[in-house]
């Protein structure tokens, strides 16, 4: 028998049909939907006179559009309110479970899935959101899809996909103090670029990866799409099983034992072949920060902005346009650059561990007066846990307030917009032009580097303050 990768094993087990000269018909175990990319799909179904085929395999929550204060009140923005209402209506009409604002199950879709145990090893998982790659942390094939594909899943529980190539990224060694999963991800993307992973599905391996917590693994897999890869995954192990066990929708009793037997098989065979391989050393990674307008434009926080020497043509004009947008010069040092906003949250870094790290860092320090900080838990469960662990008084003492769950300033569809020209150190996933509001300038970083910026009022190296 040919040796298989982890990806092959899960993919091949979900192929319903291979279309001649075309894609695979791939069966989807779990489907998540939110308010922004689903309404047109439901409308399409209605126009075709179709019903949702397997409503119990889809879970819904509004996250992209929702306010992060006063969630008990009606949403002020009419278009946002309409989209959220439409999601609830579509779910009610089709028998889909809906976790509304303020309920115990509400939150960013990629945070609530794992929390509830809906995300499990060996599954195929899709959502009309590119950061669906997050769920790959459990040893699942998880990726973002377009609205046409959301309609396909609703109609048939399948989508049509060509099988991607396979890439393995191995990171060995031990991470330095102050270096997190976010830094591993930004480091990898800075090395392979935002298109290095295109056409591939990534498996992350190596001692620096297996030593990560589930939260860290989710952060790393979340950012796979920023390298252009459709998704990233990590073979499930004790860390994974301990996280899943006992959660609401996790298998119980005998079912758990059966699941464990199956999950134990979920690893790449020793002689499995990958189309592309990269190996990095954890010791080379320092806290990262981005200086440009795509997530590949990242450097260690102690470094200086690269020059455009050696670039030509559209490479050079694109690079210069990017620095001009940021208001930075080639060769500038990142440390000491001004900061106006700090955003802690998103499907990348909105989990309990991120808030623990941020709180531990700012404990006994004070937020800089020139910084506006938005701390947005990824879900109601995360919010509850922050409160239960006593982190709120620590944050408040340091001058920080907690908001309510949602995607918030990551993509600024709600009121949490960074004003034109302002600098935002953000734990989210994209620093594209205008991502956090028209004209906003985003610097991606870990929760620790964001905390260092929040208390310093400028870009700072968290290692020097721990």
């Amino acid at each position, binding site marked *: 028998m040919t040796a298989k990768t982890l990806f092959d094993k899960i993919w091949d087990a979900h192929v319903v049909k291979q279309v001649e000269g075309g894609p695979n018909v791939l*069966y989807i175990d779990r489907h998540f939907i939110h308010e922004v990319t689903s309404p047109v799909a439901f*409308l399409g179904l209605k126009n075709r006179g179709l019903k949702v085929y397997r409503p119990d395999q889809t879970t819904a929550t509004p996250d992209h559009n929702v306010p992060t204060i006063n969630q008990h009140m009606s949403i002020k923005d009419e278009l*946002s309110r309409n989209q959220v209402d439409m999601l609830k209506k579509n779910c009610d009409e089709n028998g889909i479970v809906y976790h509304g604002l303020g309920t115990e199950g509400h939150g960013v879709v990629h945070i609530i899935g794992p929390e509830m145990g809906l995300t499990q090893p060996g599954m195929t998982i899709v959502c009309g*959101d590119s950061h669906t790659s997050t769920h790959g942390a459990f040893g699942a094939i998880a990726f973002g899809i*377009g609205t*046409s594909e959301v309609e396909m899943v609703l109609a048939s529980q399948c989508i049509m996909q060509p099988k991607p190539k396979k890439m393995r990224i191995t990171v060995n060694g031990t991470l330095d103090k102050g270096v997190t999963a976010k830094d591993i991800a930004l480091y990898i993307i800075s090395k392979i670029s935002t298109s290095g992973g295109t056409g591939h599905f990534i498996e992350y391996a190596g001692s620096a990866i297996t030593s990560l917590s589930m939260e860290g693994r989710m952060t790393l897999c979340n950012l796979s799409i920023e390298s252009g890869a459709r998704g990233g995954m990590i073979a499930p192990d004790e860390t994974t099983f301990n996280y899943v066990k006992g959660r609401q929708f996790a298998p119980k009793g005998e079912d758990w034992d059966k699941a464990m037997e199956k999950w134990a098989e979920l690893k790449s065979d020793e002689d499995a072949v990958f189309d592309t391989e990269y190996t990095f050393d954890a010791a080379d990674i320092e806290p990262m920060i981005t200086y440009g307008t795509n997530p590949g434009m990242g450097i260690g926080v102690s470094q200086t902005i690269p020059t455009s020497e050696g670039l030509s043509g559209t490479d050079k004009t694109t690079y210069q346009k990017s620095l001009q947008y940021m208001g930075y010069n080639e060769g500038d040092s990142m440390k000491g650059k001004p900061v106006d906003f700090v955003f802690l949250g998103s499907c990348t870094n909105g989990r309990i561990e991120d808030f623990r790290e941020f709180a531990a860092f700012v404990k006994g320090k004070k937020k800089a007066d020139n910084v506006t900080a938005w701390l947005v838990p990824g879900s109601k469960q995360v919010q509850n846990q922050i409160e239960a662990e006593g982190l709120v008084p620590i944050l408040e003492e340091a001058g920080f307030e907690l908001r309510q769950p949602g995607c918030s300033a990551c993509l600024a569809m709600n009121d949490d917009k960074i004003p034109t020209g302002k600098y935002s150190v953000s734990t989210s996933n994209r620093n*594209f032009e205008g991502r956090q509001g028209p004209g906003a300038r985003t610097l991606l970083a870990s929760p620790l580097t964001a905390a260092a910026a929040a208390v310093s009022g400028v870009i700072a190296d968290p290692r020097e303050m721990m």
Partner: protein
Amino acid sequence: MAYDKFSVINTSAVPLPFENVDTDQIIPARFLKAVERKGFGDNLFRDWRYENDGSPKADFPLNNAKYSGKILVGGKNFGSGSSREHAAWAIYDYGFRVVVSSFFADIFKGNALNNGLLPVVVSPEFLEKIFAQIEKDADSTFEVDLPNQKFTITATGESSDFEINPYKKHCLQNGLDDIDYLVEMKEQIAEFEA
């Protein structure tokens, strides 16, 4: 999604000589609040096309009267970022039928194909030739021949073959989409589940 059948088109092109054109530029998130698929073309490249006060930015190619046509030509890694299909809808709704680049992001490419918008991949060298031809004469036309999978610069006769999956080619030529196909497979899907 319903779209017009695609065969051969002959048209001028609009250049967008930047790399990594991400879907947040193609259609910013704040314009994704509609619950129907219409009018997205008005906000195509919104923040590159308009000032904050809504006045057009004169130097942006879509606002330059000399450029027109149904082909959009972009730098490498076109369509990176978010999975929003609104990006493909906005480009199609504006009036483009083809996007040419040397490299496309995966999700965007899939979304384009599902909406009758043809992504054409050419070599970096050929892409430079297209940009150069448009710069030389903005009225230059190009032929996109889907049946023969050929992209031709009319003025010079130079052409480049492009790849497309035979199944998606069949769909584009006949205005079909995957949902029709999948719904017809229901029995086989139910068997798979059992």
